[in-house]
């Protein structure tokens, strides 16, 4: 077995640590993500699963435990671990192809090489025609595909996705899930995918990590042993959804009670 892509050991994170506004987001996270594995983090809103993603991306610093990517401690962002955001994060003043090759431009690659790379990446996400368009001319789904293409040009070994399809309508989301699985298979990267949707978790994951609320802790890790393409109406899918719903219900209740207490 090759070395794991991501290893978290006793990982903890407190926002504004040491101040009156201190808020513990994550506690005792122990998780390994294998190369090429598709792991979904499932939990109620505000449970800290996005925080975990930001820690792995290196955008925020953790306070406790260890976090390693491919054997090296995570100390900052790296093109190796590419984060795709919930909202569209394309730069509105750049055209689609300039957005896709933004990372290459930062490295100072020449225009011809960048255009070629953009063409290749955009054809992989099925948007070859959109090269010279501007982000505001695209639909929400297309923009997220451009964001995926932008990540792919960096040839990451880990794709981190923060509820990337949450803002899309149901039909588009289903299409985007199929699309993501294609990209995942062809890129060979590991995926760490955050969602609060049980259907989405069952449709995508090799393993579903259920995260509790405040502070975020791992409640259970549920393997999904279903061949792809998956039938969402199969008996196994039904059973998994019921299991995950049960695991989540307590957490949602608790989160709810806490929010009411705050209000």
């Amino acid at each position, binding site marked *: 077995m090759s070395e794991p892509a991501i290893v978290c050991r006793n990982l903890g994170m407190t926002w504004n640590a040491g101040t009156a506004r201190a808020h513990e987001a994550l506690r005792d996270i122990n998780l390994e993500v294998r190369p090429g594995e598709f792991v979904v983090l499932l939990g109620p809103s505000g449970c800290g699963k996005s925080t975990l993603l930001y820690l792995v991306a290196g*955008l925020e610093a953790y306070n406790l435990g260890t976090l390693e990517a491919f054997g090296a401690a995570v100390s900052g962002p790296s093109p190796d671990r590419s984060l795709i*955001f919930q909202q569209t*994060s394309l730069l509105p*003043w750049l055209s689609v192809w300039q957005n896709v090759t933004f990372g290459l431009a930062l490295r100072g690659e020449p225009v011809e090489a960048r255009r070629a790379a953009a063409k290749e990446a955009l054809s992989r996400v099925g948007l070859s025609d959109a090269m010279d368009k501007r982000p505001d001319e695209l639909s929400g789904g297309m923009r997220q595909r451009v964001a995926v293409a932008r990540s792919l040009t960096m040839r990451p070994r880990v794709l981190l996705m923060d509820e990337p399809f949450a803002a899309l309508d149901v039909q588009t989301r289903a299409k985007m899930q199929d699309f993501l699985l294609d990209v995942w298979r062809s890129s060979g990267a590991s995926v760490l995918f955050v969602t609060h949707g049980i259907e989405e978790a069952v449709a995508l994951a090799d393993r579903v990590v259920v995260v509790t609320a405040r502070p975020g802790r791992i409640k259970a890790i549920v393997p999904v042993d279903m061949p792809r393409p998956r039938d969402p109406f199969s008996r196994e899918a039904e059973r998994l959804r019921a299991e995950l719903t049960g695991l989540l219900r307590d957490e949602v209740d608790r989160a709810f009670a806490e929010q009411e207490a705050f209000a």
Partner: protein
Amino acid sequence: MIARVAAKAGFHEAGRPLLSAERKASISAWASKCGWAIISVGMFALIWELLWAVGLADPKLLPPPHVFLGNFVEQARNFNTAQRWQIGAGVAAGPTPWEAVGITILSSTGRVFTGLLLAAVGSIVLGVSIRYSGWAERLILPTVTLLAPVSPVAWLPVAIFLFGIGNGPAVFMVFIALFFTMTLSTIAQIDAVDRNFINVARTMGATKRQIYARVVVPAILPGLLVVLRLNLFGAWMVVLVAEATGVGYGLGQVIMLARNTFNPSLVFFTITLIGLLGFGFDWLLRKVQARVLYWVPENKVIAGV
């Protein structure tokens, strides 16, 4: 050749419609906007004229539009830009009335524009450096915050001490009126940049410098242009004050002259010119905005005034 000219002018070739439907719609929208503007100003003028007609508005104090716009040549005589008052120069010496008005307008406009440009460039540079470097912030920000609320009028003596008379003090006044507030608003714009944009650049391995050059500066430009447009009117106010105190010539000097010679017609004539200039400038800046900031939707560009 003729065909090309005709095509350029929008004449149809072989039965094609004169103008596309879109173009027609935009022209008619523009025409109705213009129409309402004319009605609005016309109504204002009409009320004034009526007040004059029934004898409520004394023409010696509040001359109605047809009086102060009626004798252009007479008014233009006061836009004295040559050294006509100097010994040896005849009454007819110097520029014609049209030239005099033109020179006066151009010199005031030039001062506004120069001051605005210097303030914009200076405040972007200073605002970005303050956010870029902690040292710059600690050393400079307190002073900027301290000076920002000082009225530009308070700087007037300083302008005269430093630059005497001429273009210098007027440009300095425009600059000083805008520079500090625009620096603070640059900082506010930087703080409001979408975190996602910055995080995207960070995950792609951007250095701090690259983040500022490629993300922060383009992201704050739309907001800054709106600030610039709002401050344009402030710049016009300040330049008049500066000119009124002895720059030599300019619209402010004409107003001061009108005041000293008790000439209300000249005051209203100059006010009309200033109003038209401000309007024209604003229109121009909007066009620049729409062209430079092609990624900002039109309605966002127009909003703000």
